[in-house]
């Protein structure tokens, strides 16, 4: 089957620094795949390059078999690759409802009603300004907005970073619901507990290269790899 997202030999630069040095990864239909790696490994850069915020110098980005390499971000996003960025990208001066309304799209299987079912907190806060939300609520709003866009693949950049454990649980459950609705997810996350709860497969990125690709089972059975590449005790 054609993967939902395939990155092939992706190279990206910030000015002269060569950050991505040939990234290869795939997200299959219905899968949650994590991209792990130390700070500065190039995880965020990989997501930004995939969605066209950074132009790759070399390589291919394919969305459901369609080559979208080199297209501007708004085209790739319209084609169905949604990024929930690290900074969450909430419009602070727009209300929660307005943040959602500008993301609504004809042809998306998700409507605002569905969103409020998954994220009841957002309905409670719908008249509030985006800037008045807590970190967890902002994260939910950002994910909700991405869903309204009707993604073929959802990319989440550290969605539970800095959040209280109880909110983390809530968001993990929500991510599961979204996957169960059939949206493939590429997840960048430092929180290994969260990753192993959710993921079907893991990639590890080091200095701009994929150094390990393992199924959830293989990964659990290989604490040495986790130590070696992530420098934390599993």
């Amino acid at each position, binding site marked *: 089957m054609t993967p939902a997202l395939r990155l092939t030999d992706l190279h990206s630069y910030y000015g002269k620094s060569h950050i991505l040095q040939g990234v290869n990864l795939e997200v299959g239909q219905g899968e949650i795949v994590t991209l792990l790696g130390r700070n500065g490994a190039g995880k965020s850069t990989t997501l930004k390059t995939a969605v066209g915020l950074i132009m790759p110098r070399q390589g291919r980005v394919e969305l459901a078999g369609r080559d979208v390499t080199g297209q501007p971000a708004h085209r790739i996003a319209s084609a169905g690759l949604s990024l929930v960025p690290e900074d969450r990208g909430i419009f602070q001066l727009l209300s929660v409802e*307005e*943040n959602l309304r*500008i993301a609504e799209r004809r042809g998306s299987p998700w409507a605002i009603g569905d969103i409020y079912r998954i994220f009841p907190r957002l309905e409670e806060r719908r008249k509030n300004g985006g800037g008045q939300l807590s970190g967890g609520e902002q994260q939910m709003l950002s994910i909700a907005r991405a869903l309204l866009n009707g993604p073929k693949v959802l990319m989440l950049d550290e969605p539970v970073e800095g959040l209280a454990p109880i909110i983390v649980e809530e968001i993990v459950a929500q991510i599961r619901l979204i996957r169960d609705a059939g949206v493939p997810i590429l997840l960048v996350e430092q929180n290994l507990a969260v990753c192993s709860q959710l993921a079907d497969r893991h990639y590890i990125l080091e200095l701009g290269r994929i150094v390990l690709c393992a199924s959830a089972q293989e990964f659990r059975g290989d604490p040495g790899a986790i130590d070696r590449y992530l420098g934390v005790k599993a």
Partner: protein
Amino acid sequence: MIYLFQVLNGIGLGMLYFLLAVGLSVVFGLLQFVNFAHGAFYLLGAYLTYDLTTRGFSFWLAMPMATLIVACIAAVIEALLLHRIYKLPHTFHILVTVGLALVIQEMVIIAWGPLGGSVPAPDGLQGVVIWGDFIYPQYRLFTIGLTAVLAGLLWWLLEGTRLGAIVRGGSESPSNMALLGYNTLRINTAVFGFGAGLAGLAGALAAPIRGVEPFMGIEALSVAFVVVVIGGMGSYTGALVAGLLVGVVQSVMTTLWPEGARLMIYIGMALVIALMPRGLLGRA
């Protein structure tokens, strides 16, 4: 009685200033673009109205046509030229748009001569309104009413519709708009054309009051900047409040101390810059 007359004049003038400045302000909010050609769009709106009415078109047709033509011309200029310089420092914006304003002004002189002309008040509004011993031109009253309705519509458009949310979102973060699938280049062009169209409309509405002459654009530009600075860059309400304030002060001052009318406005602006650098209603 003379004060009521001047205050009404000031409100009419102020509403035209608002119309003129709100486009400049919204464009600045969205694009961080300093547009010294904004007054030239006002000039163009006035002259197109002048031209069309002297060709025998009714003012009621000439006004919307002039507005639309100015909006289209501005959108084309934005799409071909201006969008290329948004990322450059503000000095480049000034250099290019001052050049553009001069080109438009010279073209106006070539097309219609250096002397200017007058535009009669439209059919049906040539008379005066009389309340007791108070007499006021109908057309001026009409402009106050029309601009008030437009101000309400604009507010609703910006604050109450999805389209407005898109514009406000774009001024907060273009890259986040792109992540939601919006082509920000296209939004920018549309908003720029819209703002210029409002300046053109202000020019069209002003033409029967003050006539047309080739340097009215420069005057309008300085007023628009004063209004935007006093009201706060990017603020709709700021443009409305400051437009009215400047209009009324200027109008009342012309009876009290005509030479000082202009001076007062600039002193007011200097005070605002010194005390509230973001303007009365500007946001952080």
